[in-house]
């Protein structure tokens, strides 16, 4: 049977070689597919059309489009792109196919609403999305939370935010802090503390990895903003007392205003500039900060 054995060996070797070849070539193919091919991802751009063509397999298709939305966002984010044009339609299609896919609404409330380059910068669209979610899932307290979130943080519409949190707190099994948030909106709108509460709540309650990481980045930024606000107050006080800007933190320490050199959440010391401003040691490491950046510095989105 030597001829047969020969054939078996050759075919076997070729099989293994071609398996390797398949994998390698596939990677090469991938590299050559332009981002325009992502448009193909939305081969049909109308959500209604997709639903009709789904032949009833809505759930599976919704999952597929959800995956694509996350992938799309992730890859655009990694490329540090400032545009997320396809995110809204992708989330639209996902939620049309499966209106009960709560995580899609949550995702939209963060990344559709969030400002560029971290998000699509479409808070109105995000609010619309979540409102549709609420219509379809009126007893999900989390959706009211997402809505309030968008109104508060991105659209700065404190009235609507309060309304959303208040409505949400009335829903059965609502998280207790919904009431607290509603109350806080009324009194402490616009304060750092309120923002921190929101982000901490997000961090504690979300199941999505990306959203959690986003929350961490925001919390860090809030800490920095808080720190620098305090330091600025101290510098101003020093100036009032001595008439000049402090030359370094040691001056402030000498006056008993600071226990030691202040450090940022990474443990690196803040920099005291000649004109009295405080700057971060590594501004690149902190996204979303509003203070502590050198003039003309362009913040980059966080790396997830």
């Amino acid at each position, binding site marked *: *049977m*030597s*001829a*047969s054995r020969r054939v078996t060996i050759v075919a076997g070797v070729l099989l293994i070689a071609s398996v390797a070849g398949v994998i390698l070539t596939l990677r090469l193919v991938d590299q050559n597919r332009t981002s325009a091919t992502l448009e193909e991802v939305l081969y049909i751009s109308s959500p209604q059309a997709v639903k009709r063509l789904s032949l009833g397999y809505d759930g599976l298709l919704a999952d597929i489009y959800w995956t694509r939305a996350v992938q799309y966002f992730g890859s655009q984010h990694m490329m540090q792109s400032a545009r997320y044009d396809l995110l809204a339609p992708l989330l639209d299609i996902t939620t049309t196919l499966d209106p009960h896919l709560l995580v899609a609404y949550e995702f939209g409330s963060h990344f559709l609403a969030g400002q560029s380059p971290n998000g699509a910068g479409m808070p109105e669209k995000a609010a619309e999305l979540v409102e549709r979610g609420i219509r379809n899932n009126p007893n999900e307290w989390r959706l009211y939370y997402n809505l309030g979130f968008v109104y508060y943080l991105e659209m700065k519409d404190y009235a609507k935010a309060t309304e959303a949190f208040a409505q949400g707190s009335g829903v059965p099994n609502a998280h207790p802090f919904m009431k607290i948030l509603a109350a806080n909106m009324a009194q402490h709108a616009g304060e750092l503390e309120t923002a921190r509460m929101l982000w901490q709540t997000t961090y504690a309650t979300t199941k999505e990895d990306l959203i959690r990481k986003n929350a961490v980045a925001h919390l860090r930024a809030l800490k920095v903003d808080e720190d620098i606000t305090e330091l600025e107050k101290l510098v101003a006080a020093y100036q009032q007392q001595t008439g000049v800007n402090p030359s370094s933190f040691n001056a402030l320490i000498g006056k008993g205003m600071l226990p030691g050199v202040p450090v940022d959440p990474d443990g690196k010391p803040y920099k005291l500039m000649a004109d009295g401003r405080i700057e971060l040691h590594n501004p690149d490491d902190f996204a979303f900060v509003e203070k502590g950046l050198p003039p003309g510095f362009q913040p980059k989105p966080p790396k997830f």
Partner: protein
Amino acid sequence: MAAIDILGLEKTYQVGFWRKRPKQALKALHLSVEHGEVFGFLGPNGAGKTTTLKMLMGLVYPTAGTARILDMELDDPRMKAQIGFLPEQPYFYDYLTARELLDYYGQLSGVPGKERPQKIREMLELVGLRDAAGVQLRKFSKGMLQRVGIAQAILHDPKVVFLDEPMSGLDPMGRREVRDLMERLKNEGKTVFFSTHILSDAEALCDRVAIINMGELRGVGTVAALTSSVQGKIELVWQGTTVPTFLKSLNAECHVTRETVRAILPEQNQDAALDGLRRERLQLISLTPVRTSLEEYFVAQVQPNGATAGGRQ
């Protein structure tokens, strides 16, 4: 060097889905066929004839043993170019015409393009299908398919031809034609190996036969040698109307007709029977030796309590 050398070919199938049980389709077979022989491979259905042929053709792989045809390995293409095969109840590509089929097979067997049309014409003429050359095979009758089958088996002028039940399903005319063809092949010096369960054909055509039953070889040899090994019988006919009692102990088969009684009994009881007839004063009409047929031998070998286990008596 024999034309076909079978050395311990064996096939055991694993039957069943979950718990596989072995089923032995063919026990170790040792056989050889000489050049120019017409060799009959006999046995009842399910005896292992087709299994053997399939192993020789490389369609099924043996679980043990080997075989050589024309002193070459079973998967040697050079060997395959010199053999022809007609399977049992063949089925061919029914969308092809007879001519196209033979052309296709000719291509695969390596018959040079220039010679093919001529050869195909000859073959079709030989098997009597000249008029049906352009007809699609799906319109062929069973007999016609069998003839096309033979044509494709000998188209490339092979040295050894394997035929599996070549007469099956044919009417007497058809069978006669196939027998004539096989005679012709023999006259051309080809080796013919065919399996059948129609013993009269084997008797008429074969130089040697092998009898196989339940996967086991039960006898090999010339027809004459095999049949002579079976006990001879004689036929006694006498005037009478009843079966005499003494015949009962003589292992006789009796038939009573209007005026005569006919008894067939073993040769060795001949004298005792004649004595008995004389004692009873019965008139003997005839005493004839019965020519033992291969069928007798066959049946004897194939019975479960049958004489010997393989080999000659």
